[in-house]
């Protein structure tokens, strides 16, 4: 692999976005759960809900700081490493980014202050309102960034014009950009994925406490809440995935062919469960297929043409093996998580979840799987878009900065790697400290109560 500015910039973007994307899904998911916890406290007056809300607020704050710190890198990086891309899309893409700042980040970061530091400064209602606004802010930021990314997948509402002799996309219809063909479905899919991640985080820690016999009251409450919440999101995810995939079939057929490892156009087309793409022979090895199912998923009948990779010029095809494995890994992990949460919900209803140690350990591990599925899903979406940075309009290889020497990018990527490794280690340390310290018991009037061992 030749370490030119293109390769290095792609590596750096992958590194920085994957690091960043550990945090937003947790913020979005945990934000929603904190609204429910604090709402339950206001509704019932049960102090255990307040203790839970306070505990998770601390984890949320650390997580949010990491998201902010790594997020600002993403915004700058469009300009530093992808300046040709920025010149091309700025007219369209920039508005979404600016709207994200104005509508989402100010809301989030402003009221986060009240959320974290305001417990004793504002009324309960005002604090709850702040929690709601922070959770909404996290959602809004997802809206704008997914809109911008979806425009790269399925561009709409623009016209190509020559600006000072160079082609660029200019906006013609703002709402067509916002509601481009894939943005709504991809947004739903992203948010459901984030909710599963948030549900899995709370379920994981709560299941751990239940297993260790700590905080019996609040831990069981949080476990029940997160299992219901996580199960709802995890079961809806495949439906949203199906809707998204049909849009991919319609607007990005080469991407679908790569996801499915479909080298040759077929009618009816089978759905591949497992297999190993072999580019040299242009076929899947050791494939297990369900006949006609891909045609069914695309056309809703067991017949109908699905374009294979052979329908596209070689220079327009995504890397097949990476797309195939990433996509199948996402679907596989997502299915396992849906099964785990559905099973947990069923055991919860039967009143047996708190004693089912095997299932509880499964929930403890679920947060890793959920974060992995979120990351892998995004990788699949981005790798499957290749070789385009803006689908059908601008190739990734033509989008990189021309003014940056490769050695500068090498310096920055090494530093990012070192700094992010350090931050990841510290983040894990700090969060596991918090989990080990546990939930501070609610203070009854008349003095603090020490926790019974």
């Amino acid at each position, binding site marked *: 692999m030749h370490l030119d500015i293109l390769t290095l910039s792609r590596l750096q973007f992958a590194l920085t976005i994957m690091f960043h994307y550990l945090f937003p899904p947790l913020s979005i998911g945990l934000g929603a759960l904190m609204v429910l916890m604090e709402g339950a406290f206001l509704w019932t007056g049960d102090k255990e809900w307040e203790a839970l809300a306070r505990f998770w607020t601390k984890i949320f704050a650390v997580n949010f*700081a990491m998201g902010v710190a790594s997020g600002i890198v993403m915004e700058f990086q469009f300009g*530093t490493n992808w300046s040709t891309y920025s010149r091309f899309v*700025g*007219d369209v893409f920039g508005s979404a980014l600016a709207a994200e700042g*104005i509508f989402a980040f100010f809301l989030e970061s402003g009221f986060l202050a009240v959320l974290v*530091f305001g417990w004793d400064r504002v009324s309960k209602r005002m604090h709850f309102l702040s929690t709601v606004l922070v959770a909404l802010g996290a959602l809004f930021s997802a809206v704008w960034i997914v809109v911008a990314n979806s425009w790269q997948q399925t561009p709409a509402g623009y016209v190509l014009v020559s600006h000072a002799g160079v082609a660029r996309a200019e906006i013609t219809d703002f709402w067509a950009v916002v509601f481009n063909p894939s943005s709504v479905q991809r947004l739903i899919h992203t948010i459901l994925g984030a909710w599963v991640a948030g549900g899995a985080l709370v379920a994981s820690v709560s299941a751990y406490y239940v297993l260790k016999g700590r905080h019996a009251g609040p831990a069981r409450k949080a476990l029940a809440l997160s299992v219901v919440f996580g199960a709802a999101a995890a079961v809806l995810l495949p439906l949203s995935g199906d809707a998204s995939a049909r849009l991919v079939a319609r607007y990005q057929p080469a991407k679908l062919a790569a996801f499915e490892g479909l080298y040759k156009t077929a009618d009816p087309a089978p759905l591949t469960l497992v297999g190993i793409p072999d580019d040299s022979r242009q076929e899947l090895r050791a494939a297990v297929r369900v006949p006609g199912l891909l045609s069914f998923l695309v056309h809703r009948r067991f017949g109908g043409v699905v374009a294979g990779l052979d329908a596209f010029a070689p220079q327009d095809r995504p890397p097949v093996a990476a797309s195939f494995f990433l996509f199948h890994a996402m679907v596989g992990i997502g299915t396992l998580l849906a099964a785990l949460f559905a099973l947990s919900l069923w055991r919860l209803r039967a009143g047996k979840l708190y004693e089912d140690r095997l299932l509880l350990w499964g929930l403890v591990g679920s947060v890793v799987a959920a974060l992995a599925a979120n990351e892998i899903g995004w990788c699949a979406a981005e790798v499957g878009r290749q070789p385009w940075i803006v689908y059908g309009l601008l190739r990734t290889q033509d989008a990189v900065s021309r003014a940056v020497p490769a050695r500068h990018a090498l310096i920055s990527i090494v530093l990012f790697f070192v700094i992010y490794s350090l931050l990841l280690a510290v983040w894990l340390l700090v969060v596991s400290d*918090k989990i080990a310290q546990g939930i501070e018991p609610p203070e009854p009037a008349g003095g603090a109560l020490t926790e019974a061992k």
Partner: protein
Amino acid sequence: MDLRVLWFILLGVLLAGYAILDGFDLGVGILHLGARDDRERRIFMNSIGPLWDGNEVWLVTFGGALFAAFPEAYATAFSGFYLAFMLLLFALIFRAVSMEFRSKRESPLWRGAWDVAFSAASVVAALLFGVAAGDSMLGIPIGADHEYVGGFFLLLRPYAILVGLLNVSLFALHGAIYLDMKTEGELQRRVRRWTWYAFAIFLTLYLLTTIVTLTRVPRALANFERLPWLWAVVALNILALANIPRALLLRRAGQAFLSSAAAIAALVGLFGAALYPNLIVSSLSPEWSMTLLNASSSDKTLKIMALIAACGMPLVLCYTAVIYWVFRGKVELGKSSY
């Protein structure tokens, strides 16, 4: 008004908002190691704890607005200043996480390490913002194709370093005045002493920078002939600066803070006046400079953005006001503090 001019002004407003608000956060960071013990350092961090995050959003929004309104300038500046921007990013990352991480463990070694990271990151960030402003004043080598053709060390010219140091001293002054409002007792007395030192250093660098700017960058005054009202910005700058020692002597920290905020706003205004109608001046040929005309987005985008700003900014100002009201007064260390 022409949409390009409107967005040039709005970018100035965002930049001034950022410099005023995150300026005092960075200033507190610059002064952080001057706090003697753990309690004092916690007071410093908690004085900005609830606010720095929202303040940094002004920079994020400035970046997004520059991207949207003048994508050519955004692309050229960010790729041209590559290593400098990376350094700035690392500084902002450490500034953000060090506050969050420091409080989570008791060990003095742990806390000391994050104290140093926090302070160093604040100094580097403040310095780099100033260096960037200095380089923008001088102009940078931009070719006919709008690409930067200089190296990294070219950016570290003496004038740029001078403006960088000026900015560090300005933020230190602004931060010290802010801490004056947030602290009490012996710590407050010490902070007040620092305010005077910072003011003396700033004033020296300010006079030096003014002289060098007037001799080395004659372009800086080019717009003043056509737009004589710009002298009012100069007057505001001088009056605001002059009011700082007065307010300090009268023990009116709030008034001193408003004065340093006004001085920062005026400095950003003068910076804009020196650049206009350029965004990035090419030191190679004036024809290759990136201007409001050749670097901007389409009218349609500028109009949409103006609508977004008109809807969003009043909300932003409302909740900024609410947050600052909730966290007014002296710092009290409590259970939810850092």
